[in-house]
C-alpha cells in the first residue's frame, strides 16, 4: 500500500487536512503510514533522521483519535489518560509540550496535554491523578512512580498509545530495563495499548522492535517497522590544517586559528568534544584568540545549573556564535539555527557523531556541514578510517542488554507498593518484557526473597521483612513506610559522590572565606588524588586546590597557565571498537598511508625508526622510564574495555612478581602500566618473561581473584546496591544525608563477599562488570592470537606512538602491596627526620 495524497484525505479528518493545507505542508509518507497502521492497533517503530517530522508522526494517531472522540461531557465517569509520551530528558518533555500545543490550539482540538516531571509541583500531581489529561508527557522515572501507586489501574485503564521518543537512547542501560518492566505492567493495566517507538537511524533495529511488544515463551515478537527516507547526505571533511599537527594531546590547540575562522564564516557553530576537560581547554584557547569578541559559550554537565540554563537560553535565541559542548547537549533538542558542527578529537562512536552532525541542520533537504578536527596524529588516522569506511551514516545498534537484577528488585518492590501481588503472575508479566524474557523462575524467587529480607543465607531478618506473604499467598508491603521509602529512592541514576567547587582567596582555609563563587561540581574520586597546591583545569580556569571543607572543594585562582594535574576527566565515553581495528589495519599497510597528511606519515616513520610499528598479528610492547616511574605500553588495538580488563589482570601479575605496579590506563589502541620497578629490565631478565605475563591462563584464576577485590567492582556494587534498594540514598525525614543513614557500600561489599560470596547482589555486580566493563571474549581471542608473537622494545624514553596514552594517565589505583609500600615510604620519611622517633616518646 502506498500512502499518497489520496490516502491522506481518507486518513486525515478535516481539521488535520485543513491544518496541513493552511501551513502549506504535505503530510509525509511515513507519517501517513504510521497513522494508518497504528490506527489498526499495530505497535510500530519509526526510524527517521532528525528533522523528518518524527514527533508529529508519533502523535498523529493519538491526536486524530482524540479529535474523533471529542470533548468528554461533564459528569461522565472517570476517564484515564489516553496517550503516554515518554522522553529520556525532562527538558525534551517540556519542549514537546510547546511544539504539540501549537497544532492542538491552531486546530482548536478538544485535547488536554500536560507534563509531569520531577519538577512538577505536588499539587499539580495530585490534581493529575484525580483529573488526568488526555496526553501526559513524562519521563521513565515518573512512569515507575505512577505504576507503583494503588490508583494505577484506574489511571491507566483507558491508555491507548505509549510513545517512546529517542527510543535508541531510552532502551540502553538500567534505565531502559526499568522502563521495559514498567511497560510490561502498563500492558497488564491496558491490554489493548499500542506502542510507538521513535528512533534515529540504527544499524540493526530488530532489538528495538522486540523491546516494544510483549514477549511470549518460545516465540520472538516484533513491532512493525516504518522507515522515513534519509535526508541529504552530510558533507563531512577532515580539517586539513596548514599548521603542524601535534604528535599527542587532546586540545587541538594548533587548529584554533582555523576553527576560529570557520566560526566567523558561519552563523552558529556547535563545537563538540569528547570529555569535559577537552571542553575546558578548547574554550580557553578560543577565547585567547577571540579578537572580535564573538559570543562563544561553554556547556558541560559539571557546570553550575544556572550557568547552563543561561547558555541554553542564549542559544535558543540565536545570540551565540558558537558553543563548546560535551554530551550534555546531545539528543534531539532544538538548539536554534546551527549551520556548522565541528567535532574536535577522535570521532569515537560513530553513533554519537551521526547524532551530532544531524544537529547542524533541521531542514532535511539541505546537506549538513561538519568538520572533523583531529587533535593529534592518532586521531588523524581514526578520522580517515571513519571516512574510508563510510561508517558515519548509521548508528551502532544500541546495546539493550540482558535485564539486570538490581533493577528487577526495585520493580518488584514497586509492584508490591501498588497492590499485593501473586508471585507467579508477576513472573509471567516480567518475562514478557524483552530484556527479561530469559529470566529463570528460580532467580526471580531469589529476587523476591531479596526484596523481603535481603536474601541472606542467615535468616535473622524475618521479623523485619519489607514484604510478607498474606494468608492468601500474596506478597504485600509490611507497612506504609516501605512505600514511602521506595518512592524516595526510585530510579536507576546513581550519582557518584560529588563536591561543590568554590572559589576562595589563596592560602586561606578558615571560615572567613564564605561567599566565593560556586563553579560547579567535581567527583570526589578525582579530588582524592589532589594535594593542596596542585593546579588543575576546571570551568575554563586553571585552579589551585586549597583543600576540602565539609562537602566543598576550595580552590583559588592559579597564576599559571600550565595545570599540574592533566585533567578532570569527567564524562568518559564507552567507545566503539570498530574504528580501533580499522586504524590497526591502516598502520600495517603503508600503501594506505598515502591518504594521510605528510606530518602523520612522518610521525609513523619516526616511530618505525626509534621503536617499531605495531603489526597486525603481533603485539608490540615498549618499556621506558619517565619521572620516578617505569612504564610499559602495549598496543593490542582491541578497544578500551578489553584493554581495561587486560590492564587489571597484568597489574595483578606484576604485583605478584614483586614489580610493584602503581596503576594503568587504557585507550582504544593501547594500554600503559606504570610501576616503581624497572619493567624493561625485569622483562629482559625474565622476571617475569613477557610470554608468561601475557599467557592466556590469566583469564582463569587471576580474573576470579581480581574480580573479588577490585576497586571498580566496588563502584559497580554501590550502583547495584542503591538501585536494588539495599542502600538508601534518601531516608524519609532525612533527605539530607545524616550520619545515621549513610553507610559505606565498600564495607558492605567486603562483609558480603567474605560471608556470602554467592549472594544475588554480588551475582548482579559480577554480571554488570562482565557485560559492561570487561569484554572478556575479545581479550581471550587476542591473547591466543599473539602467543609467541610479542615484540619487546626497551627504550630510554617515551616513543612517539606512546605519547597519546601517556596523556590519559588515569585514576584506577592498585590495591595491595604498592599501597602498603607508599605507607611504608611515608613512615620512612618520619624516621628520616632528625628526631628519628615518635615525637610523643621523647618526653
Amino acid at each position: 500500500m502506498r500512502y499518497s495524497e489520496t490516502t491522506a484525505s481518507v486518513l486525515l479528518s478535516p481539521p488535520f487536512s485543513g491544518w496541513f493545507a493552511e501551513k502549506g505542508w504535505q503530510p509525509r509518507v511515513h507519517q501517513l503510514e504510521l497513522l494508518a497502521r497504528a490506527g489498526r492497533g499495530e505497535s510500530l517503530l519509526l526510524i527517521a533522521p532528525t528533522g523528518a517530522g518524527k514527533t508529529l508522526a508519533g502523535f498523529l494517531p493519538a491526536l486524530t483519535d482524540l479529535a474523533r472522540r471529542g470533548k468528554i461531557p461533564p459528569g461522565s465517569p472517570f476517564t484515564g489518560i489516553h496517550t503516554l509520551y515518554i522522553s529520556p530528558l525532562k527538558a525534551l518533555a517540556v519542549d514537546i509540550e510547546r511544539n504539540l500545543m501549537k497544532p492542538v490550539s491552531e486546530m482548536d482540538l478538544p485535547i488536554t496535554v500536560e507534563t509531569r516531571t520531577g519538577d512538577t509541583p505536588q499539587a499539580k500531581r495530585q490534581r493529575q491523578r484525580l483529573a488526568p489529561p488526555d496526553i501526559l508527557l513524562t519521563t521513565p522515572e515518573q512512569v515507575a512512580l505512577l505504576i507503583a501507586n494503588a490508583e494505577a489501574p484506574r489511571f491507566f485503564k483507558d491508555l491507548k498509545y505509549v510513545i517512546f521518543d529517542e527510543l535508541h537512547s531510552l532502551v540502553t542501560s538500567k534505565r531502559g530495563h526499568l522502563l521495559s518492566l514498567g511497560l510490561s505492567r502498563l500492558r497488564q493495566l491496558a491490554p489493548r495499548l499500542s506502542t510507538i517507538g521513535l528512533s534515529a537511524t540504527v544499524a540493526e533495529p530488530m532489538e528495538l522492535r522486540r523491546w516494544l511488544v510483549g514477549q511470549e515463551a518460545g516465540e520472538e515478537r516484533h513491532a512493525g517497522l516504518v522507515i522515513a527516507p534519509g535526508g541529504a547526505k552530510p558533507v563531512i571533511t577532515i580539517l586539513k590544517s596548514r599548521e603542524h599537527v601535534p604528535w599527542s594531546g587532546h586540545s587541538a590547540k594548533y587548529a584554533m586559528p582555523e576553527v576560529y575562522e570557520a566560526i566567523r564564516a558561519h552563523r552558529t557553530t556547535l563545537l563538540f568534544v569528547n570529555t569535559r576537560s577537552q571542553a575546558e581547554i578548547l574554550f580557553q584557547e578560543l577565547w585567547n584568540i577571540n579578537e572580535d569578541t564573538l559570543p562563544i559559550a561553554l556547556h558541560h554537565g559539571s557546570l553550575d545549573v544556572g550557568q547552563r540554563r543561561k547558555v541554553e537560553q542564549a542559544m535558543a535565541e540565536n545570540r551565540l556564535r558558537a558553543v563548546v559542548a560535551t554530551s550534555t547537549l546531545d539528543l534531539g533538542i532544538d538548539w536554534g539555527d546551527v549551520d556548522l558542527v565541528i567535532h574536535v578529537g577522535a570521532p569515537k562512536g560513530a553513533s554519537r557523531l551521526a547524532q551530532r552532525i544531524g544537529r547542524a541542520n533541521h531542514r532535511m533537504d539541505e546537506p549538513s556541514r561538519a568538520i572533523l578536527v583531529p587533535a593529534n596524529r592518532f586521531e588523524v588516522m581514526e578520522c580517515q578510517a571513519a571516512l574510508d569506511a563510510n561508517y558515519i551514516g548509521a548508528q551502532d545498534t544500541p546495546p539493550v542488554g540482558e535485564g539486570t537484577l538490581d533493577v528487577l528488585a526495585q520493580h518488584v518492590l514497586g509492584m508490591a507498593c501498588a497492590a499485593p501481588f501473586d508471585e507467579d503472575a508477576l513472573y509471567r508479566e516480567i518475562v514478557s518484557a524483552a530484556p527479561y524474557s530469559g529470566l529463570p523462575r528460580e532467580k526471580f524467587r531469589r529476587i523476591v526473597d531479596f526484596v523481603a529480607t535481603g536474601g541472606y543465607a542467615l535468616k535473622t531478618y524475618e521479623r523485619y521483612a519489607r514484604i510478607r506473604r498474606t494468608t492468601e499467598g500474596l506478597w504485600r508491603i509490611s507497612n506504609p513506610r516501605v512505600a514511602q521509602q521506595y518512592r524516595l529512592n526510585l530510579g536507576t541514576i546513581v550519582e557518584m559522590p560529588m563536591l561543590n567547587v568554590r572559589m576562595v582567596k589563596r592560602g586561606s582555609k578558615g571560615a572567613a572565606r564564605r561567599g566565593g563563587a560556586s563553579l560547579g561540581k567535581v567527583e570526589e574520586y578525582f579530588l582524592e588524588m589532589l594535594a593542596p597546591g596542585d593546579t588543575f583545569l576546571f570551568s575554563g580556569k586553571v585552579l589551585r586546590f586549597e583543600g576540602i571543607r565539609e562537602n566543598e572543594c576550595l580552590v583559588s585562582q592559579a597564576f599559571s597557565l600550565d595545570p599540574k594535574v592533566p585533567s578532570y576527566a569527567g564524562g568518559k565515553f564507552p567507545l566503539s571498537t570498530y574504528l580501533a581495528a580499522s586504524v590497526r589495519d591502516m598502520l600495517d599497510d603503508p600503501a594506505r598511508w598515502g591518504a594521510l597528511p605528510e606530518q602523520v606519515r612522518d610521525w609513523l616513520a619516526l616511530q618505525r625508526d626509534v621503536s617499531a610499528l605495531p603489526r597486525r598479528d603481533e603485539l608490540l610492547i615498549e618499556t621506558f622510564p619517565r619521572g620516578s616511574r617505569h612504564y610499559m605500553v602495549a598496543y593490542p588495538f582491541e578497544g578500551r574495555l578489553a584493554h581495561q580488563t587486560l590492564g587489571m589482570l597484568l597489574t595483578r601479575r606484576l604485583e605478584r612478581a614483586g614489580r610493584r605496579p602503581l596503576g594503568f590506563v587504557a585507550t582504544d589502541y593501547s594500554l600503559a602500566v606504570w610501576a616503581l620497578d624497572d619493567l624493561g629490565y625485569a622483562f629482559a631478565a625474565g622476571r617475569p618473561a613477557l610470554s608468561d605475563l601475557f599467557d592466556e591462563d590469566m583469564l582463569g584464576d587471576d580474573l576470579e581473584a581480581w574480580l573479588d577485590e577490585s576497586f571498580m567492582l566496588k563502584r559497580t556494587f554501590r550502583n547495584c546496591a542503591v538501585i536494588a534498594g539495599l542502600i538508601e540514598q534518601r531516608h524519609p525525614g532525612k533527605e539530607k544525608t545524616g550520619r545515621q543513614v549513610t553507610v559505606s557500600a565498600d564495607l558492605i561489599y567486603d562483609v558480603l563477599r567474605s560471608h556470602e560470596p554467592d549472594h544475588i547482589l554480588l551475582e548482579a555486580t559480577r554480571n554488570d562488570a562482565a557485560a559492561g566493563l570487561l569484554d572478556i571474549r575479545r581479550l581471550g581471542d587476542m591473547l591466543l592470537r599473539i602467543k609467541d608473537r610479542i615484540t619487546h622494545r626497551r627504550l630510554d624514553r617515551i616513543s612517539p606512538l606512546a605519547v597519546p596514552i601517556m596523556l590519559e594517565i588515569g585514576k584506577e589505583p592498585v590495591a595491595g602491596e604498592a599501597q602498603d609500600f607508599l605507607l611504608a615510604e611515608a613512615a620512612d620519611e618520619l624516621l628520616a627526620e632528625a628526631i628519628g622517633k615518635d615525637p610523643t616518646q621523647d618526653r
Partner: protein
Amino acid sequence: MQRLTLASADIQDCGSLSARTAVAGVDAVCDPLGALYLPQTRLLVVSDLHLEKGAAFARRGMMLPPYDTLATLKVLEAAVDRYDPAIVVSLGDNFHDRTGSAHLPEIFRARLTQLARGRDWIWINGNHDPDGVTGLPGQSADELHFAGLAFRHEPSLLSPAGEIAGHLHPLATVIRRGKAVRRACFATDGQRLLMPAFGLMSGGLDLRHKAMTGLFERARLVAHLLGRDRIYSVRFANLIG
C-alpha cells in the same frame, strides 16, 4: 576486611608489627587489629564495635548483611587471645542502636560471654547505646578513670590530659607519588588518644575533618595507621605530600 584476614592468620608473633606510644606517660601498644593495649595494667581497649549494625538498619527497612557482628567478634576474639588482658574496656557505641544488645542472637551472646570469662569487662556507654548493654557480662559506665587515664566515648574538650576516647572513627590519608591511601588510625599527641573504630562495618572521619579541630596539638600529632599487617606511624604534617 584486611583485619579479618589478619585475625584469622597466624598471629602469635606480632610484637614488631605494632607501635609503641605513650599517653600522659602511660605506655601503650597500638595493635594493627585496631585495639590498644596497656601493658602495666594488662588492660585492652577497643572502641566503637557497633555490633548488630546490620540488624539496626534492617529494623529501619535496609537489609544490610547480617554478618557484621560475627566478623567483628572474630577480630575481637583474636585481639583478646593475643594479649590475654585482665581488663577489657569497650569504649562506647558497643551496639549500633539502643535495642541492639537486647536483640543480640544467642549464638553471639554465648561467644561474648565466653570471651569475658576470667576478666573484668567494662562497657562504656556511647551515643548510639546510652542506656548500657543488657544480658551480657561486665559493667556499664559513662566513664572510667583508671591508672591515671580517663576512658570515655566522646572526647572532652575540657581535659585532654590522659584521655582515651572513641566516637570519631579517625582515618588518615597518606598521599605519595600521586596516589592516596586512606586507613583507620590511632591518633595521639601524647596527651589524648583517639581510637580507631573496631567495628568491621564502620566508616570514619578524616583527621582533617573539622570535628577533630582543637582536639590535638597538631605539631605533636601522630597517626598510627592500620596497615595490612602492621602499624604505620606517620606524623600529621607528613600525611599529605
